[in-house]
């Protein structure tokens, strides 16, 4: 089809998809100030683009010092979890039009972890909790010469918790974790759940023992913040409850 240049220009100016959005970002730079503060950026953006695109626009065109993590930018690597309009989300999976662009869109670092700069937090405590639940296959006896087979039903049992991308959106939305970082947090429990209910794994008892402790699953207050925050739609609270049930039925 022929595309007359003049017509195209006219059509674009008539219905420009761009709108002006105010991005209110919580900035923190220890090399400048010991306090974090909000800073507004006004940008022209298509509302069908994502918050991550807006952050890129700011970083590339307006202020290069804006610091945030992102790798794949397609909701798989789990680097860009942040608090957008007060709710933990992945910036790369949140469209501008879905976060009420008429008002300023607030973007801040996830809570409960040390902010290093702007939107970058220290993820070490989070990953340490993850490591503590031993998120790897534990087996006894000789290694089989072929694959460890599993029925579709057995695989289905823990299917939901295999989707975790370790973005920390759930753990940093948990009010117990905000007040006590010693709590293992939803993400670690989800990843323990993934192995506890795996029929091929034989380390379930050890993991249950770890989560039975003071900072384990019994600190969960079932506020469902984690389920709401999970960008992968994992029923996190349900997984935690299933671990609780496994602990109780194991004893009685």
């Amino acid at each position, binding site marked *: 089809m022929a595309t007359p240049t003049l017509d195209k220009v006219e059509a674009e100016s008539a219905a420009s998809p761009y709108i002006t959005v105010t991005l209110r970002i919580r*900035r*923190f*730079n*220890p*090399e*400048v*100030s*010991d306090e*974090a*503060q909000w*800073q507004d*950026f006004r940008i022209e953006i298509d509302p069908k683009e994502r918050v991550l695109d807006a952050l890129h626009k700011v970083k590339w065109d*307006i*202020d290069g010092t804006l610091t945030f993590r992102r790798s794949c930018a397609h909701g798989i690597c789990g680097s860009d979890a942040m608090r957008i309009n007060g709710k933990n989300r992945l910036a790369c999976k949140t469209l501008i039009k879905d976060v009420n662009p008429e008002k300023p869109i607030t973007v801040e670092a996830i*809570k*409960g*972890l*040390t*902010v*290093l700069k702007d939107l970058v937090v*220290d993820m070490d*405590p989070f990953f*340490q*909790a993850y490591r*503590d639940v031993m998120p790897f296959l534990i087996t006894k006896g000789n290694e089989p010469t072929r694959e460890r087979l599993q029925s579709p039903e057995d695989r289905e049992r823990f299917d939901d918790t295999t989707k975790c991308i370790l973005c920390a959106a759930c753990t940093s939305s948990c009010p*117990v974790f*905000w*007040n*006590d*970082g*010693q709590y293992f947090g939803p993400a670690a429990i989800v990843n323990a759940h993934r192995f506890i209910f795996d029929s091929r794994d034989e380390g379930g008892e050890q993991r249950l*023992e*770890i989560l*039975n*402790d*003071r900072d*384990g699953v*019994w*600190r969960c207050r079932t506020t469902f913040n984690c389920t709401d925050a999970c960008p992968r739609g994992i029923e996190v609270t349900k997984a935690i409850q299933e671990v*609780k049930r496994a*602990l*109780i039925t194991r*004893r009685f």
Partner: protein
Amino acid sequence: MSTESSAAIGSVEGVSLYDVDNPAPVIEPPRKRTGKTPKGSRTNFEMYAWLFMRLSGIVLVVLVLGHLLIQLVLDGGVSKIGFAFVAGRWASPFWQLWDLGMLWLAMLHGANGLRTVINDYAERENTRFWLKMLLYTATVFTVLLGTLVIFTFDPNIR
């Protein structure tokens, strides 16, 4: 935009206290996970506490609603309550047991709930310890005093 922002972030006097070689301390969350995970206690206490909350809650619904119904609604309502009414009720072992069960379950349920709140919100180790000691003392005192009264109640006291 950039000039505006640097002015906003820098201190009012125009001289920042912090620079690249001398960064400000980062803001750490309360009770951050330590480098090495503390060794677990390997007891089932937390599980039993959690279970107790659920079970005592169910029993308390029956006990407390029944108590309120008898005391405040049935047979003349609140106006009938007096020394004689209490004495009459505690003459029966059934109501003694009812009130004893209610006292123990409600006190332990409430104490465990407060213990949870203290564990969640008291950040400093010392504050947490002393708040819990205060809580346990108050609980033990109330439970013992109540039990004593229920069992040694004398309707002929003058």
